[in-house]
């Protein structure tokens, strides 16, 4: 009886110590929710959600302070992905935050630009190149289309240009079976 107890207690202590050690040694860093939400957000850093960037919005969602439908660039698909991740009901985009627009990039009319550097300071991803009193230009491949450079421009030389379809970004369409109107025989009409 006593022997059995000793063995069991000994085993319990030994295994407990082993498990405790393993829990410390092989600790798995949980995938933080904020990072997962941030991964879904489109990273335009446009602030249309009411937060100063995608990360702050992700933090707000994770803390339950913000709703999932405040990101217009993420679009409907983004809201669905967030609903999926957060385990909440899907809801359509909040119109107060703006509407989903086709993806575009900013374009500076170089003839009008006065080189004030205000847009450079506004750009959240450093996608504008230029210096004081020198013409600025957009690095199109790095522009997120956030439109934050439009407002500060004192001469309104920046416009948003939608990204067109080129052989580079062209996509195969979902196969559709075309509906054809069959010629109707006169006899059938009568």
């Amino acid at each position: 009886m006593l022997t059995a107890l000793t063995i069991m207690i000994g085993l319990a202590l030994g295994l407990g110590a082993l498990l405790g050690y393993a829990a410390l040694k092989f600790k798995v860093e949980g995938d933080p929710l904020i990072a997962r939400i941030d991964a879904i957000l489109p990273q335009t850093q446009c602030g249309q959600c009411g937060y100063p960037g995608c990360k702050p919005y992700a933090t707000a969602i994770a803390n339950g302070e913000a709703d999932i439908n405040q990101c217009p660039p993420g679009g409907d698909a983004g809201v669905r992905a967030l609903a999926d991740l957060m385990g909440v009901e899907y809801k359509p985009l909040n119109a107060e935050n703006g509407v989903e627009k086709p993806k575009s990039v900013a374009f500076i009319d170089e003839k009008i630009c006065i080189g004030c550097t205000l847009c450079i300071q506004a750009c959240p991803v450093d996608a504008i190149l230029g210096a004081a009193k020198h013409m600025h230009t957009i690095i199109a491949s790095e522009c997120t289309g956030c439109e934050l450079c439009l407002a500060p421009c004192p001469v309104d030389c920046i416009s948003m240009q939608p990204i067109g379809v080129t052989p580079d970004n062209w996509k195969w369409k979902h196969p559709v079976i075309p509906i054809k109107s069959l010629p109707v025989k006169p006899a059938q009409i009568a």
Partner: protein
Amino acid sequence: MMNAIVNLASLFKSAKDIFPFHGGVHPPENKAQSTQLPIGQLPIPQKIVLPLRQHVGNIPKIKVQVGDYVLKGQLIAEAEGTVSAAIHASTSGTVSAIEDAIIPHPSGLPDRCITITPDGKDQWIEKAPQDWRNAERKTLVASLRLSGIVGLGGATFPTHIKLRADGKSGVHTLVINAAECEPYITCDDMLMRERADEIVKGISIAQYLLGAEKVIIGIEDNKPEAAKAMEAAVNKVDMGTNMQVKIVPTLYPSGDARRLVHLVLGTEIPYDKRSTEVGLQVFNVATVVALYRYFELGEPSINRIVSMTGNVQAPQNFEVLFGTPMLHLVQAAGGEKANTTHFIMGGPMMGFDLPSADVPITKAANCIIAASPTLFAPPPPAMPCIRCARCADACPVNLQPQELYWFAKSDNFEKANDYKLFDCIECGACSYVCPSDIPLVQYYRYAKSEIIAQDKAKEAADLARERNDFRLARIEREKQERAQKHAERAQAAKNDTATQSPAATTDEAKKAAIAAAIERAKALKAATQDAAQTEPAVKPAQTDDAAKKALIAAAIERAKAQKAAALAAGNAPKNVADAPEPVKKEIAEIEARRQAVGLSEATESVTANNTSNADADKQALIAAAIARAKAQKAAAEAAKQASSETEKD
């Protein structure tokens, strides 16, 4: 002789050492139509339109301007980045336009093209053949970047990437793809029949560049003439080359590089590895001819053999300059027959419908088929999938096409990826066998392009996140740097003033406060001097801590003035009058202590003076207030200056 016997033996043996792959289909070949006539030559067309997008990878950089005169074989666009290929003028003439035009691409979208108006002289640049046998591999491969040679089997992958032979490519076997498995296409067949010697010379070059010990030429058994010609050519060259022709059974898609490797060697290249990682490399026959032309004749890639077949009067293979309008080729084949609906580039299995008849021939164009409803009946409407799994039986890549179909149809891309959608070679064998006539490959193409678009968007988002994080970090860093600079400057200022006044503090704001206090004290002094001629307590202290004393003095002065004012009004301070006994007692005690120190003397003298001159006292109060205000203003200004300096930094 010995070599011939060995080769002959291998020919007999060939049926045995073939390793069939899974699946495959055998559609009607339709190859005989275009092999009746030899390879034809075309007259120089009226215009040459060279799209920049003719290969896999980056768009090359244009090196000519409109109006430039170019010679045949002159570089007009150079490879940009690692995966890219150069483009050369395919005949001599003038660059007449650099603009967007419809290119032979399934999208049917226009893209940048260089248009050359030929002068008809067809004048070559100075050709520079290379003595490749005695040259370093590195220099040869580097020069290959300027050749414009891409995989001519249809994949158009730049060849110099495949030949990245810095002497240690590790390739032991070179497989030459001459299977040409797709129906209708006969360009490689005709090339082998007519130019087997050139092919063998090209193979020798590729073998040298790769350092491959062995070469296997895989030919489908529906091309006996070509196989015979190749055998003969191989037997002509010396023993050392170790080339072997292998006849493989006719089964679509044996012309896929991995299928052919499996057929001739029995090696299954892992799905996530390149063939070079297992010591193999595959070249198309037409590509090795281009290699031969480039190194031995000094001619860059400017033309190819194209099968013009289908619904035309006289199907034939032609040697076509890149950029030749497709209709020029159709004319050469006797023109299209009346019921031609459209043209297909590539074969009927993997090719695509050309968006327009007005497109140029590019490096990818191995075959042009004029289509008619009789040749290619429009597909019957797709019926529901009955899960018969015939597609899985036909799939040469061992995928589960029926599963992929469900996932692609329902936009379940993650699942499609799990089922290795990207290993699909889009050969169309599944669609071919489907009893429900479902356009399976179209679904896979759709799913693939959606996944690629999603990945690109994710990449862009990651880049944006990274840049945003960097920007925030940079702003934070700049802020800290500025703060540090200020601290340093203040420290330096302190060190400067330390010798002059120990009262000086580390901070500019503090300094300003002290200055203000001094000023206040001075003002007070002036005021009290007005009020009372003798003022021992507020005499400017000549000691080191004058500032401190001045502050104290000012405070005392203020208290005195208040007291005096109260006295002048004829009553004692109310807060003391109503105080309870213990408090009064305490006040009395404090007063006693003050007297002991000798402070109350001054108080009394002031009181004495002030009682006699209440007006003067009031003036003193006002003066003190003004001085205070002045001092505050000075302090505020000092602070402002400090902050503006911060901003300037």
